[in-house]
């Protein structure tokens, strides 16, 4: 049974042209992909993480490939809020796709400051008749930030306070990007939901390492880095399903190792409202368009007319006939 498929969908209050977005840190600020694809076909773009001031990255080496994955310790390098608003946002705003600005601070105050500044920037853009920022994606994971930062992503109370403070200083919906490096991801999601987050994005990278046995040095200058790619997909899918089951209806943006339309559909069925593609963009700059068309035809084959008809529809296994020992 083949049906006409509508990819337009909702993420909480937001309307998306497609559930396929690109992930923070894997799509820069969009421009570089202009030569490879028509960016307007994307559901949205999540930018490289922005901090109040420009940040330089970590020492090299910063990346290394592992089995079906890669480690990175880029170090949240970015141009800073001011340059972002002046030089990067206008390009993104012109595309007409949903603009998700990933941001972070180095402490409580700078997180709030960053949210406020980006919110103002968005308001100014709108006042000037341009499109603004659709989502502030707050990265509380920061696997690559050394000093402090860790509690923001791992202690529910701290995440709650931080989210609340940021929500209060801006009208732009805040989606909190969660780290998988926790015992209880549901507790984290619930805490930020209570604090007024418009949704959650998960997962960020899993902290890992690799060693060069000849030099006896880590493959990364920072010793540890973030693991991404297909290797982590089962963990991402599990966490999306855990959060979707515990907080029904709460918007989830799922990601982690998505390479194909089938992968994307797995995330929707698990409970994601939309998904982001990360690492795959490096080896295949036009991957998002391929994944989008794969998803469309797969949904058609399976008779799924609307994205909403797939979201959080995991079915239980039939129970086996009872075993009665003789």
């Amino acid at each position: 049974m083949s049906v006409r498929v509508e990819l337009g969908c909702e993420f909480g209050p937001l309307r998306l042209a497609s559930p396929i977005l690109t992930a923070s840190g894997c799509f820069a600020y969009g421009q570089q992909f202009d030569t490879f694809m028509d960016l307007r076909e994307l559901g949205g773009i999540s930018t490289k993480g922005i901090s109040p001031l420009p940040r330089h990255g970590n020492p090299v080496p910063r990346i290394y490939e592992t089995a079906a994955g890669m480690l990175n310790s880029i170090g949240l390098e970015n141009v800073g809020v001011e340059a972002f608003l002046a030089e990067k946002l206008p390009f993104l705003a012109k595309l007409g796709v949903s603009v998700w600005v990933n941001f972070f601070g180095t402490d409580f105050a700078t997180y709030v400051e960053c949210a406020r500044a980006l919110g103002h920037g968005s308001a100014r853009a709108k006042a000037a008749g341009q499109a603004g920022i659709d989502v502030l994606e707050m990265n509380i994971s920061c696997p690559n930030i050394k000093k402090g930062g860790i509690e923001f992503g791992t202690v529910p109370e701290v995440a709650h306070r931080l989210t609340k403070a940021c929500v209060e200083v801006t009208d732009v919906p805040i989606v909190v990007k969660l780290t998988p490096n926790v015992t209880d991801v549901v507790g984290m999601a619930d805490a930020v939901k209570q604090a007024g987050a418009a949704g959650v994005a998960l997962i960020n990278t899993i902290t890992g390492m690799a060693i060069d046995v000849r030099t006896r040095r880590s493959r990364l200058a920072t010793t540890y880095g973030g693991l991404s790619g297909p290797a982590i997909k089962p963990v991402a899918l599990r966490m999306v399903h855990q959060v979707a089951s515990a907080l029904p209806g709460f918007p989830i943006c799922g990601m982690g190792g998505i390479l194909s339309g089938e992968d994307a559909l797995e995330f929707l069925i698990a409970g994601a409202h939309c998904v982001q593609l990360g690492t795959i963009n490096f080896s295949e700059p036009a991957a998002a368009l391929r994944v989008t068309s794969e998803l469309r035809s797969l949904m058609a084959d399976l008779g799924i007319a609307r994205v909403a008809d797939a979201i959080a529809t995991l079915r239980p296994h039939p129970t086996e006939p009872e075993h009665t020992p003789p």
Partner: protein
Amino acid sequence: MGAAQLSATVAANRPLTGGYFVLELVTAEANPIAEAQPGQFVMLRGEWGRDLLNGRAFSVLQVIDEHRFCVLLKVFGRGTALLQAMDVGDRLTVTGPLGHGFAAPTSERKQLLIAGGVGLPPLHLHARRAVEAGQGDRIEMFYGGRTAADLVLTEELDHWGIATCLATEDGSRGVAGRVTVPLIERLDRARREGEAVELLACGPTPMLAALRTIGLARELPTHLCLEEMMACGFGVCLGCAVPVHGPKPYKYCCTDGPVFEAREVRW
């Protein structure tokens, strides 16, 4: 940057000595790699499983026409091993041309090209282009390896009439020892004769580090083609950072380079 990602097929896979091999790739449509400058590179990826995730970077060795080009490889790890095993007709994905290459010779300065190992392609292409532009006499090649088998594609250099100095550490071909030995003699001569020269180099990092020291000491324009770990090749992963002096602590090998000035590199 005019780069594109296209599907290509292997037109030839020619083994050379020393474990080196040349892949000739052909694309259905005309490809932008035809305009590649010496030092520019492509990212190659076979139809591998999800195990090897990212493309691998290879300098353009030769452009045959707007459909065909060649790269020179040596097996380093799993990706290059898979590329070596490729048969004629096998398909792979090519992204390029990427980065910025070497500048063509000028009338002011003689260009001394120093190549080591898989660093040959940029300089081999540079020599080819110089000859095609009638500037063959503006360049000289210094090419070193461990042993004779490590020196490949030298026939063409002879054929073009490029002044070439070969060096092998075991003395099995050309001068015995590192390529820097004859180079330094050449630089001394240039200094004595007041001849203006500049250095263009590509090869193992230790070799480039040595040339950097030499170039800086003698205050010669020294252009180094560097290698860094790369995931994307077009400026988005920020993995290929190169420590530099100047306003920012890092530049990017894939977009700012791979050719850098010796004095800007922070080593």
